[in-house]
């Protein structure tokens, strides 16, 4: 599908990227996750800046190739994707809509911390299933770098909490 690139705007690219989902959290897009930082179209070239959630997140390469594929579908042939640590990614950047999607997916959204993630470590953690606060941390690490494992003493189910960062 070769479109006339001259008609594609920045907004079109953002809309398209909103369809690229996080490989580890398929209910959120890379735009919802605030992983895509900037889009610039320069003639028939497109530049995308993205930032990793965790510095060592191995999913970043999958995300990069998913973005490339989507931009190729739009008709771009020259695609530049830069990784940047400027304004490091923080879970405080996730908006209410994204948080609700996470909770519905079964992951307790990250506690807001206003720039001090340590303050979130001992915060109350609500079970995403039964909404009880009677929960216990089982492990500050989980199936991916961004999640921790909890146990709900009320509905007796293990669940995951998104790590505040």
């Amino acid at each position, binding site marked *: 599908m070769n479109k006339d690139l001259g008609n594609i705007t920045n907004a079109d690219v953002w809309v398209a990227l909103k369809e690229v989902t996080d490989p580890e959290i398929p209910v959120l897009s890379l735009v919802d996750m605030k992983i895509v930082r900037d889009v610039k179209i320069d003639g028939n070239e497109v530049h995308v800046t993205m930032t990793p959630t965790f*510095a060592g997140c191995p999913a970043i390469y999958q995300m990069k190739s998913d973005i490339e594929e989507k931009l190729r579908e739009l008709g771009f042939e020259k695609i530049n994707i830069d990784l940047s640590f400027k304004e490091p990614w923080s879970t405080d950047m996730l908006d209410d809509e994204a948080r609700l999607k996470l909770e519905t997916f079964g992951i307790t959204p990250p506690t807001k911390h206003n720039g001090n993630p340590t303050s979130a470590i001992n915060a109350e953690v609500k079970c995403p299933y039964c909404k009880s606060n009677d929960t216990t941390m089982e492990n500050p690490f989980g199936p991916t770098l961004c999640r921790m494992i909890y146990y709900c003493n009320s509905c007796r189910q293990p669940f995951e909490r998104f790590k505040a960062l």
Partner: protein
Amino acid sequence: MNKNEAIQTYLLALADDELILGHRDAEWTGHAPLIEEDIAFSNIAQDEIGHAQALLRIYESLGGNDPDTMGFLRDADEFTCCHFVQMPKGDWAYTIVRQFFFDAAEIIRLRYLKNSTYELIRELAAKIYPEEQYHLLHTQGNVERLGDATEESRRRMQRAVDEAFEQALGLFEKIPGEDVLIDEKIIPDSRTLEAEWLQFVTPVLKRSGLQSPVIETNGTVESNVEPLYGGRQKKHTEHLHKIIEDMQKVYRMIPGAKW
């Protein structure tokens, strides 16, 4: 050594520490005493190796080779990691103590690097700092729990502290070119880091019922053991050669291989 070379030398030393310790941690994947710890150490390993890669990207931006080449095609005698991270994984007590000592040192170093006058280092340190706080939360909690849990855990933890203490001080061996960077407020002085590390770990060990080889006088803490140096000068243990051989085997067999 000019400023750029000094920055590269510094980044490489930190990256080598992270890369080798990350691989040591990964040796527990599938073998840790509890599934929770298996998950925790696999995560920590992934973080540390990721940090090494990010440091090496800055190294590359200054005209160096790319991260894969630096990690997988360099001979052991070109590495500048300290002996501490080279040591075999030992028992679980040693693993916990080593990771706690390393995490504490890293947190203290990052606190300074977050204010570095060198932009790329400052940005990366700000990124890594909160990640490392989760490591410290985990390892410090384990030291406190295992320090006086049972007679056996206490004995093993004490043996691990006795063994690891002088090794850990090797993290603060002066990195060649440091002085140029300290003057420009790019990095902190290794002596400052060591002093703050001693101040931090001593009360934690004490609270955990463990003795540390230090002399405390009027609020200052000094080490009573000879630090194990050599790594920053590329003088290594036999253990480094072995782990590098394991780590690089596949990459060297098929150069440029991609997953």
